[in-house]
Protein backbone atom coordinates (compact mmCIF):
# COMPACT_ATOMS: atom_id res chain seq x y z
CA UNK A 1 0.00 0.00 0.00
CA UNK A 2 2.73 2.44 1.01
CA UNK A 3 4.74 1.60 -2.13
CA UNK A 4 1.63 1.95 -4.27
CA UNK A 5 0.96 5.45 -2.94
CA UNK A 6 4.62 6.38 -3.28
CA UNK A 7 4.54 5.32 -6.94
CA UNK A 8 1.11 6.48 -8.09
CA UNK A 9 0.64 9.67 -6.12
CA UNK A 10 3.74 11.83 -6.82
CA UNK A 11 3.67 10.86 -10.49
CA UNK A 12 -0.01 11.86 -10.60
CA UNK A 13 0.78 15.30 -9.20
CA UNK A 14 3.71 15.87 -11.54
CA UNK A 15 1.71 14.62 -14.54
CA UNK A 16 -0.94 17.22 -13.80
CA UNK A 17 1.57 20.07 -13.70
CA UNK A 18 3.42 18.76 -16.76
CA UNK A 19 0.19 18.50 -18.76
CA UNK A 20 -0.82 22.05 -17.89
CA UNK A 21 2.59 23.42 -18.89
CA UNK A 22 2.81 21.30 -22.01
CA UNK A 23 -0.65 22.07 -23.35
CA UNK A 24 -0.16 25.74 -22.63
CA UNK A 25 2.71 25.90 -25.07
CA UNK A 26 1.55 23.28 -27.56
CA UNK A 27 -1.88 23.56 -29.09
CA UNK A 28 -3.35 20.04 -29.24
CA UNK A 29 -4.71 20.83 -32.70
CA UNK A 30 -1.14 21.00 -33.98
CA UNK A 31 -0.44 17.60 -32.41
CA UNK A 32 -3.57 16.16 -33.95
CA UNK A 33 -2.46 17.35 -37.36
CA UNK A 34 1.09 16.17 -36.83
CA UNK A 35 0.08 12.65 -35.79
CA UNK A 36 -2.79 12.50 -38.25
CA UNK A 37 -5.60 11.64 -35.86
CA UNK A 38 -8.25 13.57 -37.71
CA UNK A 39 -11.16 12.74 -35.45
CA UNK A 40 -9.43 13.15 -32.09
CA UNK A 41 -10.82 15.98 -29.96
CA UNK A 42 -8.64 18.35 -27.97
CA UNK A 43 -10.00 16.80 -24.78
CA UNK A 44 -8.75 13.41 -25.96
CA UNK A 45 -5.30 14.86 -26.62
CA UNK A 46 -5.13 16.50 -23.19
CA UNK A 47 -6.21 13.27 -21.57
CA UNK A 48 -3.76 11.11 -23.49
CA UNK A 49 -0.96 13.62 -22.82
CA UNK A 50 -1.75 13.41 -19.15
CA UNK A 51 -1.87 9.62 -19.15
CA UNK A 52 1.49 9.50 -20.92
CA UNK A 53 3.05 11.86 -18.39
CA UNK A 54 1.58 9.82 -15.57
CA UNK A 55 2.93 6.62 -17.06
CA UNK A 56 6.41 8.13 -17.36
CA UNK A 57 6.21 9.33 -13.76
CA UNK A 58 5.10 5.88 -12.63
CA UNK A 59 8.06 4.28 -14.39
CA UNK A 60 10.43 6.80 -12.77
CA UNK A 61 8.92 6.20 -9.35
CA UNK A 62 9.13 2.44 -9.71
CA UNK A 63 12.79 2.73 -10.72
CA UNK A 64 13.45 5.01 -7.75
CA UNK A 65 11.85 2.48 -5.42
CA UNK A 66 13.91 -0.24 -7.07
CA UNK A 67 17.20 1.60 -6.68
CA UNK A 68 16.40 2.52 -3.09
CA UNK A 69 16.80 -1.12 -2.15
CA UNK A 70 20.25 -1.77 -0.70
CA UNK A 71 22.62 -3.52 -3.08
CA UNK A 72 23.33 -6.42 -0.75
Amino acid at each position, binding site marked *: *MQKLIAVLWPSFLVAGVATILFSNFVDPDLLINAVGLADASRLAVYSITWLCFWLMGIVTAILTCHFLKPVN
Partner: protein
Amino acid sequence: MSEPAASTSSSIQQHLYSKRETIYPRQVSGLFARLRVIAALVLLGIYYGVPWLQWDGRQAVLFDLPERKFYIFGLVIWPQDFIYLTGLLIIAALALFFFTAVAGRLWCGYACPQTVWTESFLWIQRKIEGDRNQQIKLAKSPWNLNKIYKKSLLHSIWILFSLWTGLTFVGYFMPIDEIATRMVTLSLSGWALFWVLFYSFATYGNAGWMREQVCIYMCPYARFQSAMFDKNTLIISYDNNRGEPRGGRRKRDDHKAKGLGDCINCSLCVQVCPTGIDIRDGLQYQCIGCAACIDVCDEVMEKMAYPKGLIRYTTENSLEGNKTRLLRPRVIIYALILLTVMGAILFSISNRSAVELDVLRDRNSLYRETNYGLVENIYTLKVINKDSVAHEYTISASGIEDLKLEVDNLPVTAESGEVSNVITRLVADPEDLVSASTKVEFTIQAIDNPEIRISEQARFIGPR
Protein backbone atom coordinates in the same frame (compact mmCIF):
# COMPACT_ATOMS: atom_id res chain seq x y z
CA MET B 1 25.50 4.76 12.30
CA SER B 2 22.33 5.93 10.66
CA GLU B 3 21.52 2.49 9.29
CA PRO B 4 19.73 1.06 12.37
CA ALA B 5 17.83 4.31 12.95
CA ALA B 6 16.59 4.34 9.39
CA SER B 7 15.48 0.74 9.49
CA THR B 8 13.67 1.27 12.79
CA SER B 9 11.78 4.25 11.48
CA SER B 10 10.81 2.39 8.33
CA SER B 11 9.62 -0.62 10.34
CA ILE B 12 7.51 1.70 12.49
CA GLN B 13 6.02 3.15 9.34
CA GLN B 14 5.26 -0.28 7.95
CA HIS B 15 3.71 -1.06 11.28
CA LEU B 16 1.47 1.99 11.07
CA TYR B 17 0.36 1.09 7.59
CA SER B 18 -0.48 -2.50 8.41
CA LYS B 19 -2.08 -1.74 11.76
CA ARG B 20 -4.38 1.00 10.47
CA GLU B 21 -7.68 0.68 12.22
CA THR B 22 -10.77 2.32 10.85
CA ILE B 23 -11.49 5.49 12.76
CA TYR B 24 -15.06 6.23 13.70
CA PRO B 25 -14.98 9.84 14.85
CA ARG B 26 -17.63 10.64 17.45
CA GLN B 27 -19.93 13.49 16.54
CA VAL B 28 -19.25 16.80 18.29
CA SER B 29 -21.25 19.92 18.80
CA GLY B 30 -19.99 23.30 19.88
CA LEU B 31 -18.60 26.55 18.58
CA PHE B 32 -15.90 25.13 16.32
CA ALA B 33 -18.10 22.29 15.06
CA ARG B 34 -20.63 24.92 14.00
CA LEU B 35 -17.91 26.95 12.29
CA ARG B 36 -16.74 23.82 10.48
CA VAL B 37 -20.25 23.00 9.28
CA ILE B 38 -20.77 26.58 8.06
CA ALA B 39 -17.42 26.52 6.25
CA ALA B 40 -18.24 23.16 4.66
CA LEU B 41 -21.70 24.29 3.53
CA VAL B 42 -20.36 27.53 2.05
CA LEU B 43 -17.51 25.76 0.24
CA LEU B 44 -19.68 22.93 -1.07
CA GLY B 45 -22.27 25.49 -2.14
CA ILE B 46 -19.62 27.36 -4.10
CA TYR B 47 -18.24 24.18 -5.63
CA TYR B 48 -21.57 22.73 -6.76
CA GLY B 49 -23.20 26.07 -7.56
CA VAL B 50 -20.61 28.07 -9.51
CA PRO B 51 -20.66 25.99 -12.74
CA TRP B 52 -24.39 26.71 -13.06
CA LEU B 53 -23.98 30.50 -12.95
CA GLN B 54 -24.50 32.37 -16.19
CA TRP B 55 -22.76 35.50 -17.43
CA ASP B 56 -23.60 37.27 -20.66
CA GLY B 57 -25.35 34.22 -22.04
CA ARG B 58 -22.51 31.82 -21.31
CA GLN B 59 -21.30 29.80 -18.34
CA ALA B 60 -19.79 32.30 -15.91
CA VAL B 61 -16.82 30.20 -14.84
CA LEU B 62 -15.61 27.85 -17.52
CA PHE B 63 -12.07 26.64 -18.09
CA ASP B 64 -12.85 25.79 -21.68
CA LEU B 65 -10.05 23.40 -22.56
CA PRO B 66 -11.35 22.44 -26.02
CA GLU B 67 -11.51 26.12 -27.00
CA ARG B 68 -8.40 27.03 -25.01
CA LYS B 69 -10.09 29.96 -23.28
CA PHE B 70 -10.68 30.41 -19.57
CA TYR B 71 -13.75 32.40 -18.62
CA ILE B 72 -13.90 33.81 -15.10
CA PHE B 73 -16.98 36.01 -15.05
CA GLY B 74 -16.07 39.08 -17.13
CA LEU B 75 -12.46 38.05 -17.56
CA VAL B 76 -11.29 35.91 -20.47
CA ILE B 77 -7.90 34.28 -20.07
CA TRP B 78 -6.03 33.01 -23.11
CA PRO B 79 -3.11 30.60 -23.25
CA GLN B 80 -0.98 33.73 -23.71
CA ASP B 81 -2.20 35.00 -20.34
CA PHE B 82 -1.04 31.86 -18.61
CA ILE B 83 1.19 34.00 -16.41
CA TYR B 84 -1.93 35.19 -14.55
CA LEU B 85 -2.94 31.68 -13.62
CA THR B 86 0.59 31.02 -12.47
CA GLY B 87 0.37 34.22 -10.46
CA LEU B 88 -2.91 33.09 -8.95
CA LEU B 89 -1.30 29.81 -7.84
CA ILE B 90 1.66 31.70 -6.36
CA ILE B 91 -0.77 33.94 -4.46
CA ALA B 92 -2.63 30.88 -3.18
CA ALA B 93 0.62 29.29 -2.00
CA LEU B 94 1.85 32.47 -0.32
CA ALA B 95 -1.53 32.98 1.35
CA LEU B 96 -1.28 29.44 2.69
CA PHE B 97 2.21 30.19 4.09
CA PHE B 98 0.96 33.40 5.64
CA PHE B 99 -2.08 31.87 7.30
CA THR B 100 -0.08 28.89 8.48
CA ALA B 101 2.50 31.13 10.14
CA VAL B 102 -0.20 33.15 11.88
CA ALA B 103 -2.91 30.63 12.64
CA GLY B 104 -1.52 27.16 12.05
CA ARG B 105 -3.48 24.59 10.12
CA LEU B 106 -6.70 26.55 9.61
CA TRP B 107 -6.73 25.34 6.02
CA CYS B 108 -6.64 21.67 7.02
CA GLY B 109 -9.29 21.92 9.68
CA TYR B 110 -11.87 24.04 7.91
CA ALA B 111 -11.28 24.48 4.19
CA CYS B 112 -9.36 21.55 2.70
CA PRO B 113 -11.50 19.56 0.25
CA GLN B 114 -10.32 16.37 1.91
CA THR B 115 -11.74 17.58 5.23
CA VAL B 116 -14.94 18.97 3.73
CA TRP B 117 -15.81 15.83 1.76
CA THR B 118 -14.78 13.50 4.55
CA GLU B 119 -17.15 15.36 6.85
CA SER B 120 -19.92 15.14 4.28
CA PHE B 121 -19.35 11.41 3.89
CA LEU B 122 -19.29 10.96 7.68
CA TRP B 123 -22.55 12.89 7.94
CA ILE B 124 -24.18 10.51 5.43
CA GLN B 125 -22.76 7.54 7.34
CA ARG B 126 -24.19 8.88 10.60
CA LYS B 127 -27.62 9.33 9.04
CA ILE B 128 -27.64 5.71 7.89
CA GLU B 129 -25.64 3.78 10.47
CA GLY B 130 -26.17 5.90 13.54
CA ASP B 131 -23.60 7.29 15.96
CA ARG B 132 -20.07 6.11 16.62
CA ASN B 133 -20.96 3.16 18.83
CA GLN B 134 -23.61 1.92 16.42
CA GLN B 135 -21.15 2.20 13.54
CA ILE B 136 -18.54 0.16 15.39
CA LYS B 137 -21.17 -2.40 16.38
CA LEU B 138 -22.37 -2.69 12.81
CA ALA B 139 -18.83 -3.14 11.54
CA LYS B 140 -18.22 -5.95 14.03
CA SER B 141 -21.54 -7.68 13.45
CA PRO B 142 -21.75 -10.63 11.04
CA TRP B 143 -23.17 -10.07 7.57
CA ASN B 144 -26.90 -10.28 8.11
CA LEU B 145 -29.73 -8.68 6.14
CA ASN B 146 -29.66 -5.50 8.21
CA LYS B 147 -25.94 -5.00 7.64
CA ILE B 148 -26.18 -5.74 3.93
CA TYR B 149 -29.06 -3.29 3.63
CA LYS B 150 -27.31 -0.51 5.54
CA LYS B 151 -23.94 -0.96 3.87
CA SER B 152 -25.35 -1.08 0.35
CA LEU B 153 -27.51 1.95 1.04
CA LEU B 154 -24.49 3.81 2.41
CA HIS B 155 -22.28 3.00 -0.54
CA SER B 156 -25.02 3.74 -3.09
CA ILE B 157 -25.51 7.20 -1.63
CA TRP B 158 -21.75 7.75 -1.40
CA ILE B 159 -21.38 6.74 -5.04
CA LEU B 160 -24.24 8.97 -6.20
CA PHE B 161 -22.76 11.87 -4.26
CA SER B 162 -19.36 11.15 -5.80
CA LEU B 163 -20.80 10.99 -9.31
CA TRP B 164 -22.42 14.35 -8.79
CA THR B 165 -19.08 15.65 -7.54
CA GLY B 166 -17.27 14.24 -10.57
CA LEU B 167 -19.85 15.69 -12.93
CA THR B 168 -19.49 19.08 -11.30
CA PHE B 169 -15.71 18.89 -11.61
CA VAL B 170 -15.87 18.20 -15.33
CA GLY B 171 -18.50 20.96 -15.53
CA TYR B 172 -15.73 23.47 -14.81
CA PHE B 173 -14.05 22.43 -18.05
CA MET B 174 -16.98 21.70 -20.37
CA PRO B 175 -20.48 23.20 -20.47
CA ILE B 176 -22.14 21.63 -17.44
CA ASP B 177 -25.74 21.67 -18.68
CA GLU B 178 -24.67 19.63 -21.70
CA ILE B 179 -22.74 17.13 -19.56
CA ALA B 180 -25.60 16.79 -17.11
CA THR B 181 -28.10 16.10 -19.89
CA ARG B 182 -25.79 13.62 -21.53
CA MET B 183 -25.06 11.96 -18.20
CA VAL B 184 -28.76 11.42 -17.58
CA THR B 185 -29.41 10.17 -21.09
CA LEU B 186 -26.25 8.01 -20.91
CA SER B 187 -24.77 9.56 -24.03
CA LEU B 188 -21.65 11.12 -22.55
CA SER B 189 -18.66 10.84 -24.88
CA GLY B 190 -15.59 8.77 -24.06
CA TRP B 191 -13.11 11.11 -22.42
CA ALA B 192 -15.66 13.28 -20.66
CA LEU B 193 -17.14 10.12 -19.15
CA PHE B 194 -13.65 8.94 -18.22
CA TRP B 195 -12.98 12.15 -16.27
CA VAL B 196 -16.36 12.13 -14.54
CA LEU B 197 -15.76 8.55 -13.41
CA PHE B 198 -12.12 9.20 -12.51
CA TYR B 199 -12.96 12.16 -10.29
CA SER B 200 -15.93 10.34 -8.78
CA PHE B 201 -13.73 7.38 -7.97
CA ALA B 202 -11.16 9.68 -6.37
CA THR B 203 -13.87 11.34 -4.27
CA TYR B 204 -15.35 8.03 -3.18
CA GLY B 205 -11.95 6.55 -2.41
CA ASN B 206 -10.51 9.58 -0.62
CA ALA B 207 -13.55 10.61 1.42
CA GLY B 208 -15.09 7.18 1.91
CA TRP B 209 -12.09 4.94 2.45
CA MET B 210 -8.74 6.72 2.74
CA ARG B 211 -9.84 9.68 4.87
CA GLU B 212 -7.18 10.63 7.44
CA GLN B 213 -4.59 8.53 5.57
CA VAL B 214 -4.66 11.10 2.78
CA CYS B 215 -3.64 13.77 5.29
CA ILE B 216 -1.05 11.63 6.98
CA TYR B 217 0.60 9.85 4.06
CA MET B 218 -0.30 11.70 0.87
CA CYS B 219 -0.59 15.38 1.63
CA PRO B 220 2.56 17.35 0.74
CA TYR B 221 1.40 20.32 2.79
CA ALA B 222 1.10 18.25 5.98
CA ARG B 223 4.74 17.27 5.59
CA PHE B 224 6.17 20.77 5.34
CA GLN B 225 3.69 22.92 7.24
CA SER B 226 5.75 22.61 10.41
CA ALA B 227 8.48 24.65 8.68
CA MET B 228 6.16 27.67 8.83
CA PHE B 229 5.45 27.18 12.54
CA ASP B 230 7.12 29.05 15.34
CA LYS B 231 6.44 29.67 19.00
CA ASN B 232 3.83 32.31 18.18
CA THR B 233 1.77 30.24 15.78
CA LEU B 234 -1.78 29.42 16.80
CA ILE B 235 -1.99 25.72 17.65
CA ILE B 236 -4.48 23.45 19.34
CA SER B 237 -2.95 22.22 22.52
CA TYR B 238 -3.71 20.44 25.72
CA ASP B 239 -2.67 22.36 28.81
CA ASN B 240 -0.32 19.88 30.41
CA ASN B 241 0.25 21.90 33.57
CA ARG B 242 -3.44 22.18 34.25
CA GLY B 243 -4.55 18.71 33.19
CA GLU B 244 -1.93 16.45 34.73
CA PRO B 245 -1.93 14.17 36.57
CA ARG B 246 -5.05 12.98 34.78
CA GLY B 247 -7.45 10.53 36.31
CA GLY B 248 -11.07 9.57 36.91
CA ARG B 249 -13.02 11.13 39.74
CA ARG B 250 -16.58 11.89 40.82
CA LYS B 251 -17.92 15.35 40.22
CA ARG B 252 -18.21 16.19 43.91
CA ASP B 253 -14.65 15.06 44.69
CA ASP B 254 -12.10 17.73 45.45
CA HIS B 255 -9.61 16.56 42.82
CA LYS B 256 -6.90 18.97 43.96
CA ALA B 257 -6.93 17.36 47.37
CA LYS B 258 -6.56 13.98 45.65
CA GLY B 259 -3.57 15.35 43.78
CA LEU B 260 -5.31 15.20 40.37
CA GLY B 261 -5.23 17.72 37.53
CA ASP B 262 -8.26 18.88 35.56
CA CYS B 263 -8.18 16.06 32.97
CA ILE B 264 -10.72 13.41 33.95
CA ASN B 265 -9.28 11.00 31.37
CA CYS B 266 -12.65 10.43 29.70
CA SER B 267 -10.87 9.85 26.34
CA LEU B 268 -13.55 11.78 24.48
CA CYS B 269 -10.87 13.94 22.85
CA VAL B 270 -9.44 10.79 21.31
CA GLN B 271 -12.84 9.51 20.20
CA VAL B 272 -13.75 12.68 18.31
CA CYS B 273 -10.40 12.99 16.56
CA PRO B 274 -10.75 12.34 12.83
CA THR B 275 -7.12 11.27 12.61
CA GLY B 276 -7.26 9.16 15.74
CA ILE B 277 -4.52 10.84 17.78
CA ASP B 278 -4.37 11.79 21.43
CA ILE B 279 -3.92 15.57 21.61
CA ARG B 280 -2.60 15.14 25.15
CA ASP B 281 0.61 13.64 23.69
CA GLY B 282 1.56 17.10 22.43
CA LEU B 283 1.72 18.69 18.98
CA GLN B 284 1.68 16.01 16.28
CA TYR B 285 1.82 16.37 12.55
CA GLN B 286 -1.25 14.16 12.18
CA CYS B 287 -3.29 16.89 13.89
CA ILE B 288 -5.27 18.69 11.18
CA GLY B 289 -6.39 21.43 13.56
CA CYS B 290 -10.12 20.71 13.34
CA ALA B 291 -10.73 21.70 16.97
CA ALA B 292 -13.17 18.83 17.59
CA CYS B 293 -11.26 17.99 20.78
CA ILE B 294 -11.68 21.58 22.00
CA ASP B 295 -15.45 21.41 21.63
CA VAL B 296 -15.83 18.08 23.34
CA CYS B 297 -13.42 18.89 26.17
CA ASP B 298 -15.15 22.22 26.85
CA GLU B 299 -18.42 20.31 27.18
CA VAL B 300 -16.86 18.00 29.75
CA MET B 301 -15.27 20.88 31.65
CA GLU B 302 -18.66 22.54 31.81
CA LYS B 303 -20.28 19.40 33.21
CA MET B 304 -17.52 19.10 35.80
CA ALA B 305 -17.87 22.81 36.60
CA TYR B 306 -14.18 23.38 35.78
CA PRO B 307 -13.08 26.36 33.69
CA LYS B 308 -13.14 25.72 29.94
CA GLY B 309 -10.05 25.62 27.77
CA LEU B 310 -8.11 22.62 29.05
CA ILE B 311 -7.66 21.97 25.34
CA ARG B 312 -7.65 25.25 23.44
CA TYR B 313 -6.29 27.37 20.63
CA THR B 314 -3.09 28.78 22.02
CA THR B 315 0.56 29.30 21.18
CA GLU B 316 3.69 27.67 22.47
CA ASN B 317 4.77 30.98 23.98
CA SER B 318 1.48 31.43 25.77
CA LEU B 319 1.61 27.88 27.17
CA GLU B 320 5.04 28.66 28.58
CA GLY B 321 3.62 31.81 30.16
CA ASN B 322 5.28 34.19 27.71
CA LYS B 323 3.66 36.85 25.57
CA THR B 324 2.47 35.90 22.09
CA ARG B 325 3.74 38.20 19.38
CA LEU B 326 1.56 38.48 16.30
CA LEU B 327 3.85 40.74 14.27
CA ARG B 328 7.18 39.04 13.80
CA PRO B 329 9.68 39.05 10.92
CA ARG B 330 8.33 35.83 9.42
CA VAL B 331 4.76 37.10 9.28
CA ILE B 332 5.76 40.53 8.01
CA ILE B 333 7.92 39.05 5.24
CA TYR B 334 5.18 36.63 4.10
CA ALA B 335 2.67 39.49 4.10
CA LEU B 336 4.98 41.80 2.14
CA ILE B 337 5.72 39.20 -0.54
CA LEU B 338 2.01 38.35 -0.75
CA LEU B 339 0.98 41.97 -1.19
CA THR B 340 3.71 42.60 -3.76
CA VAL B 341 2.69 39.64 -5.91
CA MET B 342 -1.00 40.51 -5.61
CA GLY B 343 -0.32 44.11 -6.56
CA ALA B 344 1.82 43.10 -9.54
CA ILE B 345 -0.81 40.69 -10.86
CA LEU B 346 -3.64 43.18 -10.42
CA PHE B 347 -1.61 45.89 -12.09
CA SER B 348 -0.73 43.74 -15.07
CA ILE B 349 -4.28 42.40 -15.49
CA SER B 350 -5.69 45.90 -15.55
CA ASN B 351 -2.99 47.00 -17.99
CA ARG B 352 -2.94 44.00 -20.26
CA SER B 353 -3.08 44.59 -23.98
CA ALA B 354 -6.52 44.29 -25.53
CA VAL B 355 -5.09 42.62 -28.58
CA GLU B 356 -2.64 39.77 -29.03
CA LEU B 357 -0.64 38.84 -32.10
CA ASP B 358 0.96 35.51 -32.98
CA VAL B 359 3.04 35.17 -36.12
CA LEU B 360 3.42 31.72 -37.63
CA ARG B 361 5.65 31.15 -40.64
CA ASP B 362 4.27 29.12 -43.48
CA ARG B 363 5.54 25.60 -42.93
CA ASN B 364 5.53 24.42 -46.52
CA SER B 365 8.22 26.58 -48.03
CA LEU B 366 10.94 28.78 -46.63
CA TYR B 367 10.55 31.41 -49.35
CA ARG B 368 9.37 31.81 -52.93
CA GLU B 369 10.84 33.79 -55.78
CA THR B 370 8.27 35.75 -57.72
CA ASN B 371 8.23 36.28 -61.49
CA TYR B 372 9.82 39.68 -60.97
CA GLY B 373 12.83 38.26 -59.12
CA LEU B 374 11.57 39.33 -55.72
CA VAL B 375 11.52 37.14 -52.58
CA GLU B 376 8.23 36.32 -50.93
CA ASN B 377 7.58 34.88 -47.43
CA ILE B 378 4.16 33.79 -46.24
CA TYR B 379 2.95 34.10 -42.66
CA THR B 380 -0.24 33.41 -40.81
CA LEU B 381 -1.03 36.17 -38.34
CA LYS B 382 -3.31 35.18 -35.51
CA VAL B 383 -4.99 38.34 -34.30
CA ILE B 384 -6.69 37.73 -30.96
CA ASN B 385 -9.18 40.35 -29.85
CA LYS B 386 -9.17 40.27 -26.07
CA ASP B 387 -11.30 43.39 -25.77
CA SER B 388 -14.98 43.26 -24.92
CA VAL B 389 -16.02 44.88 -28.25
CA ALA B 390 -15.28 44.12 -31.92
CA HIS B 391 -12.44 45.96 -33.66
CA GLU B 392 -10.98 46.54 -37.10
CA TYR B 393 -7.21 46.51 -37.36
CA THR B 394 -4.54 47.66 -39.76
CA ILE B 395 -1.36 45.69 -40.28
CA SER B 396 2.09 47.00 -41.06
CA ALA B 397 5.53 45.44 -41.30
CA SER B 398 9.04 46.85 -41.03
CA GLY B 399 12.63 45.72 -40.80
CA ILE B 400 13.72 45.61 -44.47
CA GLU B 401 13.99 48.47 -46.91
CA ASP B 402 11.06 48.74 -49.34
CA LEU B 403 9.33 45.79 -47.68
CA LYS B 404 5.92 45.22 -49.24
CA LEU B 405 3.03 43.74 -47.30
CA GLU B 406 0.16 42.01 -49.09
CA VAL B 407 -3.03 41.02 -47.33
CA ASP B 408 -6.17 39.94 -49.15
CA ASN B 409 -8.85 41.30 -46.89
CA LEU B 410 -8.12 44.56 -45.17
CA PRO B 411 -8.97 45.78 -42.67
CA VAL B 412 -8.79 42.75 -40.41
CA THR B 413 -11.89 42.36 -38.28
CA ALA B 414 -12.24 40.37 -35.08
CA GLU B 415 -15.24 40.06 -32.82
CA SER B 416 -14.74 40.23 -29.07
CA GLY B 417 -12.92 37.12 -27.96
CA GLU B 418 -12.37 36.00 -31.54
CA VAL B 419 -9.18 34.88 -33.27
CA SER B 420 -8.71 36.11 -36.82
CA ASN B 421 -6.29 34.21 -39.01
CA VAL B 422 -4.75 36.50 -41.59
CA ILE B 423 -2.63 35.13 -44.42
CA THR B 424 0.07 37.72 -45.03
CA ARG B 425 2.73 37.87 -47.73
CA LEU B 426 5.91 39.92 -47.32
CA VAL B 427 7.78 40.73 -50.51
CA ALA B 428 11.31 42.14 -50.59
CA ASP B 429 14.04 42.75 -53.14
CA PRO B 430 16.89 40.24 -52.59
CA GLU B 431 19.30 43.18 -52.98
CA ASP B 432 17.96 44.63 -49.76
CA LEU B 433 18.49 41.43 -47.76
CA VAL B 434 21.61 41.58 -45.61
CA SER B 435 21.58 37.92 -44.60
CA ALA B 436 19.64 34.72 -45.22
CA SER B 437 17.45 35.43 -42.26
CA THR B 438 16.36 38.97 -41.44
CA LYS B 439 14.38 40.18 -38.47
CA VAL B 440 11.05 41.80 -39.38
CA GLU B 441 8.38 43.26 -37.18
CA PHE B 442 4.62 43.11 -37.66
CA THR B 443 2.44 45.73 -36.00
CA ILE B 444 -1.31 45.69 -35.77
CA GLN B 445 -3.36 48.61 -34.57
CA ALA B 446 -7.04 49.09 -33.96
CA ILE B 447 -8.46 51.68 -36.37
CA ASP B 448 -10.84 53.17 -33.84
CA ASN B 449 -8.34 53.25 -30.98
CA PRO B 450 -4.62 53.80 -31.71
CA GLU B 451 -3.77 52.77 -28.15
CA ILE B 452 -4.75 49.19 -28.92
CA ARG B 453 -1.65 48.07 -30.77
CA ILE B 454 0.96 45.38 -30.52
CA SER B 455 4.11 44.36 -32.35
CA GLU B 456 5.55 40.91 -32.86
CA GLN B 457 8.84 39.88 -34.39
CA ALA B 458 9.38 37.26 -37.07
CA ARG B 459 12.07 36.09 -39.49
CA PHE B 460 12.21 36.79 -43.19
CA ILE B 461 14.07 34.05 -45.04
CA GLY B 462 15.79 34.70 -48.35
CA PRO B 463 18.31 33.03 -50.69
CA ARG B 464 21.96 33.12 -49.80
